[in-house]
């Protein structure tokens, strides 16, 4: 049992996922989309209609945030941050070797592998053509260079993007989507009707 926990906690794949801001934010938002509605449903003080309304609203809000984050924020800020940093830190060797954030992330993925697995992967044409000769040489070493500054640039761009995207942009998008969706589901009535119907607690 303890051995299983130890091997799970020291798993390199989990470590790679845990190092990524995108993975952390995506997983955290998914957990919120599942956890919050579940706790609302379990609340015994609320009536059924209010529970349904609050659960659907919370689920839709978190799902919209997740979709906005994944399809708009991540591509925009990952590459934007990389390009901006490349201009700011022209002398940094890592920025001279990579043209885009994705190219660096592909390098990082290969660099985290064991040497024999990495060389096998690098021998594939579709993989090797992604990199320049210098990068291929670097990947052939026992321990390839980590290029912490480049990695940190991508993560910083992701954190800034996550903050702006999830705190400012996503709520606006969800505001446009959530209320019509709730109306379609029959959980939110038109203003005139809802004024008459006071059975649903809209504050929930």
């Amino acid at each position, binding site marked *: 049992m303890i051995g299983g926990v130890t091997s799970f906690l*020291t798993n390199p794949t989990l470590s790679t996922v845990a190092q990524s801001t995108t993975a952390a*934010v995506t997983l955290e938002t998914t*957990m*919120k989309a599942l956890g919050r509605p579940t*706790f609302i449903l379990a609340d015994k003080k609320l009536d059924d209609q209010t529970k349904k309304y609050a659960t659907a609203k919370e689920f839709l809000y978190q799902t919209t945030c997740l979709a906005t984050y994944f399809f708009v924020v991540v591509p925009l800020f990952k590459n934007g941050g990389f390009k901006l940093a490349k201009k*700011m830190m022209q002398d940094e060797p890592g920025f001279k070797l990579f043209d885009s954030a994705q190219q660096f992330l592909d390098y990082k993925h290969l660099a985290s592998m064991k040497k024999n697995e990495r060389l096998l992967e690098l021998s594939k044409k579709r993989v090797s053509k992604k990199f320049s000769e210098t990068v291929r040489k670097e990947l052939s070493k026992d321990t390839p260079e980590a290029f912490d500054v480049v990695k940190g640039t991508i*993560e910083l761009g992701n954190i800034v993007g*996550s903050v702006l995207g999830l705190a400012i942009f996503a*709520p606006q998008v969800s505001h446009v989507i959530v209320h019509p969706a709730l109306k379609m589901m029959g959980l939110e009535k038109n203003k005139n009707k809802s004024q008459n119907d006071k059975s649903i607690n809209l504050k929930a």
Partner: protein
Amino acid sequence: MGTNNSLTNGVKKLCESLGRSNKATYAVVAIAAAKGIFRPLFTLSDKHEKPETKRYTAWREGLTEVVAIPTYLGIAMVAEKIATNLKVEKKSDIAVAKHNANFLGVCFAAAIVIPLITSIIINPIMKVITKNDSKKKAVTQKNDLLDLKGEAQPKKAIETSDYGVKKTPYTPYKPLGYSFAPARQLGMKVGGL
């Protein structure tokens, strides 16, 4: 030029540190802090919602994020401490385990601990806030009612002094319990009783 260089160096150091070790707590705490500020502001600026509902929702959203920040930090710290005590073959594995435990702690906090704490704590806090609000509302309504009564009363009654003279800014001040008014106005009986 010097400012630019120091800014670049600062960003470089920050990026280097993030590149070496990027904990899951950094992103989620930053997001929670920003959400705690902006979500209530957006709710308060919503023109379609009733002011009472807006205030309630804004308080609730702000408090949820206030609860979330220390919870994320606390759970992640506890998870890291547990990982430190694991028996591993290599010393470097402890660092990996601590990092992974931080990530799993954040997930656990988001899925279970924060919704649980929120459902326990928020409702009593919101009751106190709404109670205070309704008290304030009741006082305001009472004042409004008094104002209305004042308006309904004939102006003469307010503007005339005890002497039956029209009150002006120069009407002399009359201390409580002191009367200089004619006896007939005070309703004095014969014999002073």
